[in-house]
């Protein structure tokens, strides 16, 4: 059933490039949107997929071999929602039919890539799909061919290529002891030959590659540049799912399935996570550009996910995955809002904006919900995931880290409040008097995302039963 998630986008690309160009240009957006909607429905209601047996037969030709557990399903759902949002934002910002056609093609390919990353159980195939995702995101960053976008893309290319080289070197070293690239084979081989120097080295460089890909603090240089220079729809996609899939999901999956939670790995994850939280939050305080501030805030929130993973307990892992989900939702909501502000006023500089809440009520309200969720204010979704992470840290004895997490949460609230105060509240400036609410393509996805944030927050007790219990089973599996 899950092979359709790779094959449908693949066939979508092929169908779009059949000879009927004029027709296909008209329906490219809708085809792409329906494939994304199919993915969301398949995750929510697995029983709808009745034609999937034939696709599975086709998948077996390519030796599809998937391991889909609850973590993968959470990620697949996030990918669907965020790509849906990004498509609407792109359609709103760009009228050119050719551009939408190209965007639909590349986003189908990036969908293939991310679905592959989420579902494989072979470390080399993981690398292959990481590269598909990375190459598509390079293209998307440089999509509008602006000068800064090329530079952001080049920075991302260099760091990402170094990360994949490190990853491949680690894979080669694992191959020495396991002779196979499956997760389970490597995991059992690692248990046999533990404590060898070069195996420790391989684990270290693999983790380092994951840190580069997810933009954690010693290696975060590319994140603000890539996010702020990309087109609006692409920043939604990058911040919402791409770096989360290629970096954080890979980290969680590899640590959980292959390396296991040894003491050195735990301490490394906790230290890197804590540094990212603090540095990201402090750097976000000093930013004037909305997108750069959101990018630094993203680094800080990724730190929370990593610190939750670092506890190595079922509770911490649940918190980390829940925060990963929440972060995808609220960060894409905030990037949609920044796109709305930018498209209506033409600037992202906070000093030039003020008092927009009266002119753009829906954008204002949804952005308040998004920032409060990010800062961890109760009843919203972000509060519960941060609470779980902090409780997990406290229970497993890392009390210093728990205190850091709580204090940094105050910093988060501080920079979001200053953002809200300078952009949405205050006196409306004269040159902004003609601003009106953003278009449908920017308001509709923002409303959907805001409803998810509030809904998950309020119905948290219902949600946690279907969410947390399966996660305990995947630990160490």
């Amino acid at each position: 059933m899950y092979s359709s998630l790779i094959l449908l986008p693949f066939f979508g690309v092929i169908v779009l490039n059949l000879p009927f160009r004029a027709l296909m240009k008209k329906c490219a957006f809708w085809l792409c949107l329906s494939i994304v909607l199919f993915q969301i429905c398949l995750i929510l209601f697995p029983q709808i997929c009745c034609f999937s047996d034939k696709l599975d037969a086709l998948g077996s030709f390519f030796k599809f071999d998937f391991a889909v557990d609850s973590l993968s399903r959470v990620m697949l759902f996030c990918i669907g929602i965020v790509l849906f949002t990004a498509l609407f934002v792109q359609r709103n910002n760009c009228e050119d039919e050719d551009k939408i056609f190209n965007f639909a093609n590349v986003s189908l390919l990036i969908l293939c890539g991310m679905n592959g990353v989420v579902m494989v159980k072979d470390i080399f195939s993981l690398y292959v799909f990481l590269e598909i995702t990375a190459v598509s995101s390079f293209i998307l960053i440089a999509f509008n061919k602006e000068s800064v976008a090329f530079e952001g893309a080049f920075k991302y290319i260099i760091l990402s290529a170094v990360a994949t080289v490190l990853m491949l070197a680690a894979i080669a070293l694992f191959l020495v002891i396991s002779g196979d690239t499956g997760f389970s084979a490597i995991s059992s081989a690692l248990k046999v030959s533990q404590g060898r120097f070069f195996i420790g080295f391989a684990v270290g460089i693999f983790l380092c590659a994951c840190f580069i890909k997810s933009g954690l603090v010693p290696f975060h240089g590319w994140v603000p540049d890539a996010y702020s220079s990309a087109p609006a729809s692409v920043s939604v996609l990058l911040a919402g799912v791409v770096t989360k899939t290629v970096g954080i999901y890979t980290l969680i999956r590899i640590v959980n399935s292959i390396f296991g939670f040894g003491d050195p790995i735990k301490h490394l994850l906790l230290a890197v996570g804590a540094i990212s939280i603090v540095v990201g939050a402090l750097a976000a305080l000093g930013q004037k550009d909305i997108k750069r501030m959101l990018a630094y805030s993203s680094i800080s929130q990724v730190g929370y996910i990593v610190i939750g993973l670092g506890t190595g307990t079922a509770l911490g892992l649940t918190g980390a995955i829940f925060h990963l989900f929440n972060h995808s939702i609220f960060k894409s909501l905030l990037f949609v809002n920044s796109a709305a502000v930018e498209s209506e006023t033409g600037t992202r500089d906070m000093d030039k904006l003020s008092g927009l809440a009266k002119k753009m009520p829906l954008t204002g309200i949804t952005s308040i919900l998004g920032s409060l969720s990010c800062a961890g204010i109760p009843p919203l979704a972000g509060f519960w995931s941060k609470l779980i992470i902090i409780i997990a840290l406290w229970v497993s004895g890392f009390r210093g880290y728990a205190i850091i997490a709580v204090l940094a949460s105050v910093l988060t609230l501080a920079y979001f409040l200053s953002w809200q105060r300078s952009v949405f509240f205050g006196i409306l400036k004269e040159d902004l008097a003609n601003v009106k609410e953003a278009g449908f393509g920017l308001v509709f996805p923002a409303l959907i995302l805001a409803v998810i944030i509030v809904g998950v927050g309020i119905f948290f007790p219902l949600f946690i039963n279907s969410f947390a219990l399966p996660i305990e089973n995947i630990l160490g599996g």
Partner: protein
Amino acid sequence: MSSEVINLFFYYGFFVVMLFIIGIYCVLATFNLIRALIGLEILIKAVTLLLIAVGYVTAHEALAQSLVITLIVIEAVVITISVGVVVGIHSYNKSLDVRKIRNLKG
């Protein structure tokens, strides 16, 4: 396995590490964008050599070869895209010197 094979692996490992140092130094020290890409290529060459050597030492040549073939295809695509980005940067700045095109602060 015999210690001779292990020795062989460490010989190759030695040269792989040397290639890594050259590549990383090139990426870090150069100010020219194309030269940075050439440094990346040398890094990828080092990894290719490592994979092939591992395949030879563990008598898994078939697996190592199929991995390397995939790696080479991916490498070609990545280099093509990055060359496209470099040409794009050049069309704006008329220069490939990193010091002249630093608009982004990091």
